[in-house]
Structure formats: C-alpha cells, structure tokens
C-alpha cells in the first residue's frame, strides 16, 4: 500500500492523538490533485443543542451553542440532542473530485450533510440507523462531488437521542485513498476473523480431548467476541434488513455485555482468582451478574424508565465496566506474582484486552481519548493480540497438562508393573523356599526318622503312617514348586502336571513340543510353567472345555507357547481383568514377551505367549 509522507505523519499523529490537539485555524479543507486524508475535527467547531430543533435550517443556527472542544474526534455528550458543524471544501484541481466523509461509529442514528447552494440548503447525503436505509459498506459514508475549482460551504448535522453519548471519527478523503484504506481494513478484519475462528476450532478440539470447562468458556468468549467486534465494526448494518438496523445496536449491546461477562469469568478461572483473591472474585461476579441483568432489563423490559434516566444508567454501566477492568488488572498482577512463567503470557494477553477495553469505554462514554489505526478501533487490535496470546498460552497450558499427565501415567504404570513383578517374583521365591524346605529338609528328616524307626521296630502301621506323611509332604511341596523343572526341563514338568490333572479332571489334554530347546533357561521355564498352570486352572474353573491343546514351539529367536481350549470362551471385554490373567501378563512382561489372547463366546480360547530368547 502506498502511503506518502504526509499521510504517514497523519497516521502517527492520530495513533496517539489524545485530546489536546491544537485548535484549527480555519474551516477550509483545500485539496489539489494529490491524494489526501484529513480528520474533519481539525477543521471545524461543533455547535450543540440540548433540544431537538426539528429539521435543520440556516435560520435556526442561533439556537445552537458553540462547544469549546479540543478532542481529535467528534464527541457529543450524554445530553446533546442535535449538533452541527460547518466546513468548507475547496477543489483546486482542474478535474472534478469525489470526496468521501467516512464515519467510524456504526450506530449513528441520523447524520446529514447539507451543501449551501446559492443560499439554500441542499442535502448531499444522510446516514444512520434511523433512516431505514442500508449502506452497501460496513461503515457509514457520505460522498460529495466537487466540480473543478469549486469551493462550497457544508453543514454536517447530527440528530441523536439524549442519554447516549456519541463518539465518532469523521475522515475526509479523496475516493482513491478511501478505497485503499478500506481494502486494508478488509484484509485486517478478515485476518482477525480467521484468527478467531481458528482459535475457536482449536479450543473446541482441546475441549473435546481434555474436557475442561475452561476451554469451552474460552470458545464461548471467542464467539461472543467475534460478534461484538463484528457489530462494532458495523457488520450488522450490512447483514440486517434496513427496517431493523436498530437490532444491530441491540446485538452490539448484548454482545459487549456478554463478552465482558465471559471475559471476566474466564479470566477469573485462568487467573485462579478463587485461590488468590477470593473476595475480589466474589464482588466481581456479583457486579457482572448485576450489570448484565440490569442492562438487559433496562434495554428490553423497562425501556421507558431507561429512557428517562439514560444518562445515569449509562454512567453507572461505564463505571461497572471500569471497575471490572481494574479488578482484572489487579488479578493479573497478583497472578503474575504467583506464576512466573505461563502467568506472564496470560497477563500480557489480559492486559491487552483490559487496556483496549478501558480505551473503548473512555472513548465512547466520556470522549476522553481515542486510539485507532487505519480507521480501525483500538479494541480491534487489542482483541486480536489478546486472542493470539491467549490461544498460544492455552496451547502451552495443554502441553503442560499433557506432559504432567503422561509422566504421571507412565510413573503409575511403571509403579504398578514393578509392584506386580515384585509380587510375582516374591511369590515365586517364597514358593521355592517353602517348597524346597518341605521337600529337602522336612521330607528328608521324616524319611530318615522312618528308617531309624524301622530298624528298631518293625511295626507295619507305623511304617504306613510314615509313608503317608512323606507322600503328603511331597505332594504339597510339588504343588507349590515345580522343582523338577531344573531336572526334567519344562516339557517334563508339564508332562507331570498334565498327568496329575488328567487323574482328576474330565479333560483331554494334548501336549506337544516342536523343536523346543531343552536347555531353556530356568527363569523362563518356570514362568512358562506357571503360565500353563494358571491357564489350565482357568480352563478347569471357567471354560467348561473338553479338550485342551498345549504346544511349545522353538523358533529362531523366540519360543512360543500356544494354548487352546474348546470351551465356552469369554467376551472380549472381560479378558483384561482377572488376577490369573494379570499374573500371566506380568510374567510375560518380565520376560519381555508378548501375550496374545483371543476368545469369542462358544468358540473357545486361544492364548499365545511369545518369548524372545536371543538376548536372555
């Protein structure tokens, strides 16, 4: 975009133009062929009347009082009903020129521009929501055409309802400059909408995944903010039918109200006001509810009461908003004190919005200061920055939450795994200890005792008793430890196990090995033996099976246990539970193996255990 020197200066100037601009020297705007862009307020005086004087005419001029106003924009106070300004346009070029007066405030009620033509007033154009005429662009504008070398006097006339202050910029530009600026604004607004929509999508996704109301609240805030900014930038004037343009203002009022409320509530949550400033939080919430209810009540239900005391109510409203923003700023700083890292981002984003809001309120209520850039209001930029920062911050927060959760979950799983492993290992050790104690020590001693006795007394009954005790000890010892694994290997131990089971159970068990290594290490053998034992117990207890196939396969780098039964099977969902299966899982994990379990009702169960052997 081409900006000449003069224009740059003007933008910088208007950027920080606080109310102390020097008074205009005269009321003439003179222009040549070059582009120009001027702030009308620098050239005119405002004359106001507190009564509505009816249709404007030059003979009523003495009913208006001149206003000594140093603001850089047009501001009509609460009690003003009608106002006018007089200005002269002079076209020094040799071609006719189109000059455009654009108004920044979208909710003008009734503004007309008259040209003094041979002593008469000629209407050049009128805009405003009360005129039931729809603009084709989002901002109000009046277009005036000046002939070559023409110099004319114009009157700008405002009609407004009392009680509502009016603050607007009026820029006088040649049509080219106007459309340039307009293009820039469109791009900026489009980007803004894109940013907000993206953030909205993002926060919705986060909400779906994390299920924290905070993100829903943020999404709500974004939506309302978009509506608010949209209506403030005048889009309601485009979208609504001409006869209900006033609804735009209602939307603006509700959305600014709601967005303030949600913004503050959201901030309360994010800034953890409950923790740091519980009292302030309560009063803030009270004020929000009060303000919202009151404003809605006045606007829609008690309109006459509102109309009578508009000024009071408006001042009250602005005050509550100021209070909320101040409270927010306090909260930001308290939060910043407690949370250094992420807090800073939050604080920055909130400060943007808080400052933007203060500026907005001060501008529209008391006309105190103005902040705009390229014809777009400060609040627009403030909220864009805020959304940017907030979304980034929330992303960081989500990252943090995920990291915490992940590390916590990992720790938990690891802990559980450790516990279970320790438990299984402890069980195994204890079994081994008790088993060998019974088997080797106590068993041996009893056998010995028996022999000692038998050499001295040859009592058949006693001998029998001794034999029974030995048998019992042996049975118990063997049921708790497969000590013979080291003697006969895994397949031998399983053979033995099957023999005892087949004695008591109505179960056909086929057991085969296929190139299964004989010298498999004892740890793995014991685990696999226990797994087979556990699976068989499950089958006997629950499966109602008649046939079981147990197979051991030796592969290149692994061994596989395959266990199939023709029982009733289990539904897939129940497979992960059960102490037995948990135990098995733990054993398999300890061996770095894999447990594959598949079962369908009435189709039997198949269990595969794959144990790597290369690195063990």
């Amino acid at each position, binding site marked *: 975009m081409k900006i000449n020197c003069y224009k740059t200066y003007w933008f910088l100037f208007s950027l920080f133009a606080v109310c102390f601009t020097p008074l205009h020297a005269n009321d003439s705007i003179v222009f040549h062929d070059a582009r120009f862009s001027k702030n009308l307020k620098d050239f005119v005086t405002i004359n106001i009347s507190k009564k509505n004087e009816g249709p404007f005419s030059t003979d009523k001029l003495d009913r208006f009082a001149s206003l000594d106003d140093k603001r850089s924009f047009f501001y009509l106070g609460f009690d003003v009903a009608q106002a006018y300004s007089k200005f002269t346009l002079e076209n020094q070029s040799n071609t006719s020129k189109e000059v455009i007066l654009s108004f920044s405030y979208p909710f003008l009620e009734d503004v007309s521009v008259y040209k003094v033509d041979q002593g008469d007033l000629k209407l050049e154009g009128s805009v405003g929501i009360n005129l039931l005429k729809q603009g084709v662009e989002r901002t109000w504008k009046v277009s005036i055409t000046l002939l070559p070398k023409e110099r004319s006097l114009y009157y700008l006339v405002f009609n407004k309802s009392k009680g509502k202050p009016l603050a607007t910029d009026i820029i006088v530009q040649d049509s080219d400059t106007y459309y340039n600026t307009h293009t820039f604004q469109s791009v900026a607004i489009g980007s803004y909408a894109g940013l907000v929509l993206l953030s909205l999508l993002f926060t919705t996704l986060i909400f779906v995944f994390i299920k924290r109301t905070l993100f829903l609240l943020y999404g709500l805030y974004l939506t309302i903010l978009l509506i608010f900014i949209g209506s403030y930038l005048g889009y309601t004037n485009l979208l609504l039918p001409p006869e209900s343009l006033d609804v735009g203002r209602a939307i603006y009022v509700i959305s600014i109200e709601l967005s303030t409320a949600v913004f503050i509530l959201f901030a309360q949550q994010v800034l953890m006001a409950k923790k740091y400033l519980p009292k302030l939080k309560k009063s803030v919430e009270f004020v929000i509810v009060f303000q919202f209810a009151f404003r809605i009540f006045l606007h829609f239900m008690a309109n006459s009461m509102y109309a009578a005391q508009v000024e009071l109510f408006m001042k009250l409203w602005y005050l509550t908003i100021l209070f909320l923003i101040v409270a927010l700023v306090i909260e930001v700083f308290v939060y910043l004190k407690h949370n250094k890292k992420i807090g800073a981002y939050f604080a920055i984003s909130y400060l943007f919005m808080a400052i933007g809001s203060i500026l907005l309120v001060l501008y529209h209520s008391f006309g105190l200061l103005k902040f705009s850039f390229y014809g777009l209001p400060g609040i627009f930029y403030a909220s864009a920055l805020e959304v940017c920062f907030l979304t980034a911050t929330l992303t960081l927060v989500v990252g943090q939450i995920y990291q915490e959760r992940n590390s916590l979950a990992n720790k938990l799983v690891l802990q559980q795994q450790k516990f279970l492993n320790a438990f299984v290992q402890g069980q195994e050790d204890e079994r081994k200890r008790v088993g*060998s104690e019974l*088997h*080797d*020590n106590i*068993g*041996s*001693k*009893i*056998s*010995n005792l*028996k*022999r*000692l006795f*038998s*050499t001295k007394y040859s009592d058949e009954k006693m*001998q029998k008793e*001794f*034999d029974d005790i*030995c048998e019992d000890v*042996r049975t118990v*010892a063997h049921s708790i430890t497969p*000590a*013979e694994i*080291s*003697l*006969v290997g895994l397949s*031998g*131990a399983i*053979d*033995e196990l099957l*023999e005892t089971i087949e004695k008591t159970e109505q179960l056909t068990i*086929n057991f*085969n090995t*296929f*190139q299964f290594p004989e010298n498999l290490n004892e740890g793995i053998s014991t685990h696999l033996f226990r797994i087979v034992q556990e699976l068989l117990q499950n089958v006997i207890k629950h499966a109602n099976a008649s046939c079981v*196939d147990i*197979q051991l*396969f*030796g*592969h290149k780098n692994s061994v*596989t246990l*395959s266990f*199939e039964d*023709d029982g009733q099977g289990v539904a897939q969902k129940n497979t992960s539970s059960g102490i037995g299966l948990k135990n098995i899982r733990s054993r398999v994990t300890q061996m770095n193996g*894999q447990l*594959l379990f*598949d079962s*369908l009702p009435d189709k*039997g169960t*198949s269990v*595969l255990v*794959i144990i790597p052997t290369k690195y063990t």
Partner: protein
Amino acid sequence: MNDQPRKILICEDHQIVIDGLRSIIQDFSGFEVVDAINGYSNLYSSLEKYEPSILLLDLNLPQKNGLEILQELRGKNNDIKVLILTMYNKKTIVNKTITHGANGFLLKNCSSEDLLDALNHVSKESGFYYGEGVVKSTKPDPLKEDEFYKRIQLTPREKEIIKYLCDGNKVPDIASAMSISPLTVETHKKNIYRKLGVDSSIKLVTFVHENQLL
C-alpha cells in the same frame, strides 16, 4: 564272598540324611560308607581318593543337580554304580535317570530293607532297580512318539488358519476375517510352518494336499 566290603560314596546335601544312611549301612554286612560329600565340588577328589563302587546320589543338589552329575560321569566313561536316592517320584524323572545310565532309583522314605536290596542288586546285577513305590516307566506310546503323527495333530485354530492360508489369504485379511489381531495370525502361521516343517505358503499347500490334512 564277603572278604572286601563294597565302598559306598554318599552325595547328599542334608547332613541328617547322611548320618541316617551311615548308621543304617553300618549294620549292613558287606557295605561300607567311605565318604559323604555335599555336592559336585568335591566329587572327583573323593572318587579318586576312595575309589568307591557305589554312588548314592541325591537329585536335588546345590551346584549341579544329580542328573547332570550322572550325565557327566557317564560321559567320562565312569561306570560306578549309581543309585539315585530322592524324594521325586515322577515318571519323567525316573525315565531320565534311566536314559542317563543310573542303576537304580530309591525314594528317600524307603525302608532299610529296600536300601539293602538295592545295594545288593546294583552290585551284582545289571538290570535297573526300582525301589519300593517308585513309578515304573510305561512303554512309551508308539503313536504319540511318532514324529509324523505328532506333526499332523493340528488344533482347531491352526486348521482354521491353514484353511485361510491355503485359500491364498494374506495375514491381515485372515486377521480381520477371524477378528483376531494380525500378530496372532502371524504367530500361528509361524508355529504351523515350524510344526509341518515348511517355510513357504506353496510348500504348505503342497504338504496339506499330500497328507490330506483338512
């Protein structure tokens, strides 16, 4: 011929059992306990020193178990008579001791008469001595031992997967058709290949057809 008592070496890790055996064998004429050791570590020094003719061997020993000791002795062509003395009364174990060349099998809770019988048996005869109550190993089931028969014993799940494989299905399709995980199918397939001794799906199909497995 009781001129020279036969020398017995006890290999056992419980002192009380050793003491008991010593006191019982003392009463047997013709037998003498020359040494008792706790395990593998001092086995060879004792064998060299006393040159015993009978080894009373426990199976459950600290460093090397009895079976391994037996295997090693026979591997070194040591033909000392080995009499297993253990608590384990399991067919598989008895069978293993026989295949590894033991001469007899006694349970620890045997009577002194049984012990004497066993000692006499191993010193004079060549057959395997079964102690009182020791489970006799039955003749192995010829059908069960047959490698081929063993190979073609397919489980229902394996049959199902073979059917799919022979129809030319790939692992992921089989998995989804059977609603089990691909890894499960893959593992079954690997097992089947190992079992039937094939290494490709073509060989599998040929094998299945030749032997009419399905």
